[in-house]
Structure formats: C-alpha cells, structure tokens
C-alpha cells in the first residue's frame, strides 16, 4: 500500500445531477461524447494512464451520482482521494450555488489530513450550450468563488466539444500530485523509477 501513492492517483468528480460529470470523464478517457448517457447510480469509475513530468501515473477517476442523498454513501468513495474535481453547469445557477455544499461534504467525508490545502479543481461545464446565450454564471463570478476558497484552479469546459477537457485534467493530475512528496520521502519500499523529478514547481497550472 505504500506503493499505491506512487503510481495511482485517485480523483473524485462531484457536482449536481446533470452538470456533465460522466460526460467529462468519458470525453477525457475515451474522447467520446454521447447525448445518451444514463443517470449514474452510486458511482462509476474509469482509469487512464497519464504521463506527467516524465513519470507515468494511473489516474483513477471516480464519477459520482449527483443526487444529494447519494452523499450518504460518499465516505467509501471519497476516502483516499488525491484531488476533488467540482463541476457545475454554467447555465444553471443552482448547480453553482451548490458548490459550497459539495466542497464541504467532501471535506467532511473524505476527512483529508490537511483540509485547508486539499486540492480542488473547478470546472464550469456546458459552455457550448446555445452558443453561450443561456449562460447564467459569469466567469468572473466563478473565479471569485475560486479565489475565496484558496485559489482553486478553474476551467470552462465543454465535454460535448472537447473544449479545455484535456487541459483541465492535466491540471487535475498536477494538483493531485501536490500533496504527494512528503508522504513518499519516508516510504522505505518505494523506488523512484523515472528519476527524482517530483516536487518541483507544481503550482499555478492555469
């Protein structure tokens, strides 16, 4: 288990129902978009091999159900997460207003060792809808929220058109690695295969 953190990065995607969590995950992992996704029940899961700073990682992406009551099942899924991706729909104020709730619930249930510095990334999805005319949450507003939560990186995405999805996940990987170094320095049975490239300037990816 000491070696788990070496190569595996666990990422949890949270946000209201229908904001496009499943679509974002599928666009990133399979480069596909479908109008016919099924509602996610409980949680779903995909993995992807990623390279970052000459190192290989397995990204474990947990897609969760958006209905609030499924949060009761969160403990099992959230624990051990390296990064939490919050998603809202730029065309729905409610999905934006609920971000506080998702963030808090994650911190309560995952109980990370350093909640103040736990890496989150915010994605404002569905920027493609109606050519942006139905948009109700401004970029400024979203960024202000991010600033108030300790400078959470922010991306505006379209899972449908594949806009910014790759970039967002690059940033997610980077942030997932933020908490890694100290923990690993003391692991006796880990061997740095690729060479000590880690722990160098991994901030401000966007």
């Amino acid at each position, binding site marked *: 288990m000491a070696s788990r953190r070496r190569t595996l990065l666990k990422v949890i995607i949270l946000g209201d129902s229908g904001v496009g969590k499943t679509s974002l995950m599928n666009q990133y992992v399979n480069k596909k978009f479908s109008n*016919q996704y099924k509602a996610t029940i409980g949680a779903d899961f995909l993995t992807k091999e990623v390279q970052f700073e000459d190192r290989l990682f397995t990204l474990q992406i947990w897609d969760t159900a958006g209905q609030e009551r499924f949060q009761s099942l969160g403990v099992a899924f959230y624990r051990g997460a390296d990064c939490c991706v919050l998603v809202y729909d730029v065309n729905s104020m409610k999905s934006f207003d609920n971000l506080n709730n998702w963030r808090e619930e994650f911190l309560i249930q995952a109980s990370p060792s350093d909640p103040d510095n736990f890496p989150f990334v915010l994605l404002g999805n569905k920027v493609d809808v109606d050519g942006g005319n139905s948009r109700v949450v401004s970029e400024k507003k979203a960024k202000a*929220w991010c600033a108030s939560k300790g400078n959470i990186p922010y991306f505006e995405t379209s899972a449908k058109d594949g806009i910014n999805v790759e970039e967002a996940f690059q940033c997610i990987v980077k942030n997932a690695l933020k908490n890694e170094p100290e923990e690993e320095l003391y692991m006796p049975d880990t061997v740095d295969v690729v060479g000590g490239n880690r722990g160098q300037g991994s901030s401000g990816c966007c």
Partner: protein
Amino acid sequence: ATQLASIEEDRAVEETHEGNSAEESYDAEKVDRSQDGAPGDSTSVTLEGDNGGSYFPWREELESLVRGGVPIALRGEMWQAFVGVGARKITGYYNKLLDERTDVLDEKDLKDQVVNEQKSSPKKDPKPEKWKGQIEKDLPRTFPGHPALDEDGRNALRRLLTAYARHNPSVGYCQAMNFFAGLFLLFMPEENAFWALVGVIDEYFEGYYTEEMIESQVDQLVLEDVVRERFPKLAKHTDILGVQVTWVTGPWFLSIFINMLPWESVLRVWDVILFEGNRTMLFRTTLALLDLYGPALVTTKDAGDAITLLQSLAGSTFDSSQLVLTACMGFQSVKEMGLRELREKHRPEIIAAMEERSKDRKSWKDKKGLATKLYSFKHDPSSVCPQVDSKEGADGLQVNGDSGSTTLGSYLTGSALENELDEGIDLQDQVKWLKVELCKLLEEKRSAELRFMLLLFWF
C-alpha cells in the same frame, strides 16, 4: 414447453458449472443439493417460510421454473403475480395521487416550473415538489434510445415516478427508481407498474432509497462480511490492493444490476428477486459473480485494474443461466434469516457514523455562523461589542464601522460573493480580511478600545 426446455438447459449448465466451480462454493452447493429434496416433493420441508405466509405446495416447482428463467411472453404477468400487484392495488389510488396537483403534470407547466426554479423565484407554485427537477433530469437518461421510451413512454414514466413520490414522501424520488419504473413499464400497464414499484421500494427495499439510504449502507457491510467468509483469498488480495469490493457492488445493489449486467441477466435476476420478495438474490448474484471472476481478480496488480476488471467482466456476463444457477444453487446457504442477523449487527455502526457526520456538518455550520457574526460586527458593532461603552470609543468605532460597512457593502454586492453571504464565508478568509480592516482602523484612530478588540478577535 419453453419452460421445460429452459429448465433442461439450466440443469445442463449446472452440471458444467459444478466442474469448474471454485472449491469455496462447491461445498455449499453439495450441502444445498441435499436440502433441495426431490423436485415435486410437496412435503419437502426445505422451504423455510422466508416469504411469510406464501407457502404453497408447488412452490418448489415454481421456484425452479423461475430460476430457469420466466418466459419473456409471460414475464409481465408473472412479475405482477410475484409482487402481488392484484392484492396491493387500491382502485382509484393511482389516479388520485396524480390528480392531487393536476396543474403540475402537464409538460408545459413543468417547463415553466424548471425555468422558475432556475430563477429561484417560484412564484407560480409556492412549494414545488422537491423531487420534480430530478425526475425531469432523469427521464431522458432512463434507457436512452429505447423505443418504448418515446414521448408517451416518458410521460408515463413521469407520472409513475411522481405518483410514487407522493405515495411515499419519505422516499420521494431516488435515482435508480427511474430504471425500475422504466423496466416495469416495459412489461405491464402503467397503473400496475406503479403497484409493482410500490411493492419493491416499500417492501423489498425498505429503507434503501430514503434520504439517508441506511439499509443500502447496511447491506454493503453485510456483503463485506459474507465475502470475507466465502472468499478469504479474494478478500485478502483486495485488502492488499486497497480495494473495497463494495465500491463496485454498491452500485450493483442500488441499481439492482440494471446497466451493470447484460439485459438478459438483469431480467433473470429480477425474476428471482421478485419471486422471492427479498434482497437475498442480490447477495447470491454478487457472490456468484465473485465466484466466476474471483480467479481473474486475484491476478490483478493494482486497485484500478481490479475494479475495472470486475466491472467489465460483470458487464459481459452473457450466460445468464450460469449466473442465476451459480447464485441460487451455489449460494443457497446464504439465506434471508442469516442476512437479517448480520444487518442487525451492522445497522448501529451505520447510524452512529451518520450521526457523527451530521455533527461534523453542524460544526461546519457553526463555524460559518461565527463568520457571519464577524461580518455583522462590521455592520453593527454594538451587537458584538457591547462592552465598548466609552463614548469616545464607541463614536470612533461607529464612524469607522459605517465607513467599513460601506466598503463591505460594495465588496459584497459588487462581487460574485453575493450569495456567499447567505451560506457563510470561509472563516479563514474572514479573519484575514478582518485583520486588514482592523489594522486600517487602528492606524486611523489608534483607539485603545479598538486595540483591545483587535486582540479579542485575533486570538
């Protein structure tokens, strides 16, 4: 004839299965076989009355027919009979539920409502039903592309889910029910589908889909116990990988395998669940899947591989007969009574954990409450600092308080943090901001009271 054929097929599968079966289940199977009695032996005492008073002489034959797969042409009728739709049905109840608020079940009104919700000004309907939005979102996400779920199909689905939510507000609407309702609609008339849904959610899955989802969580702990007992080698392997089997099985249980197994397998498992009228088959099916795929699972080298493998293998379980037979015969010793005991054992943990979390949530709220108080200090210093009674000090403070609140006002209304205020603002940010503000005040007034207050707030 179809039934007989499928039984024969199953017997054949059973033989094949015995050969390949993992040792762990082989023993169980042998024991169960001896309990099984001769087919048609109506005096057999192996039926333990799991189903309450539903004992009848030819139950055993029916049971093997069900395990062999209900013929598709009879499935609708059989399912209704199993769940007891006829007995449950109260004439006029369904329509009455729908009539309760005639205004809301019209497509056009619903759209208005969604718009209203987004603008958060529910003028038209003072108290919109809270499950409505979620149901609307899920209608197109229920078996998308299925020809039966055209516009009429979706309207029926909407009515069915709305009626159920009104029938049992403690559950209301929970995602996954859309799939159950959709499934029933494929096999029976709308009103009967409603009563089937009532039977499943109110009875077989009582406490599963409520706000707290307690029984759902309890079942996963129970399953973990059973898996550890039945598959010690697999359990050890998943422990080493840091995988919880329940990550995968949780969604299996919640969705009763819909979208998790191939269609035919889903239907075959549902045949048995509806016939037995409890959740035992969820456990047996899961154990059968672990039995089938355990050997592959123990070769995986990391958590991601293990979960992905289990998910994808489950999704390609096309041999529905092998699955159901392994479940029912191989794990016949997993019984409702035993599961009930385990549930009693685990329920307190779940409830305790839930209470713990609600305490955590409350302490978050309290922190926020404090943050809001800090804000109101800027608005109305006297409310927070009644001890500042020196006239000079109070005046000085008042002046600055006013100018401060102007700044605060523009800060709040001019920025995106507007709705933050209602929900509270991060305490740390608050303290930082207050420090800055107080330093400014200090510089300007250098009042002793202020310095005192600064200390109070700082520490």
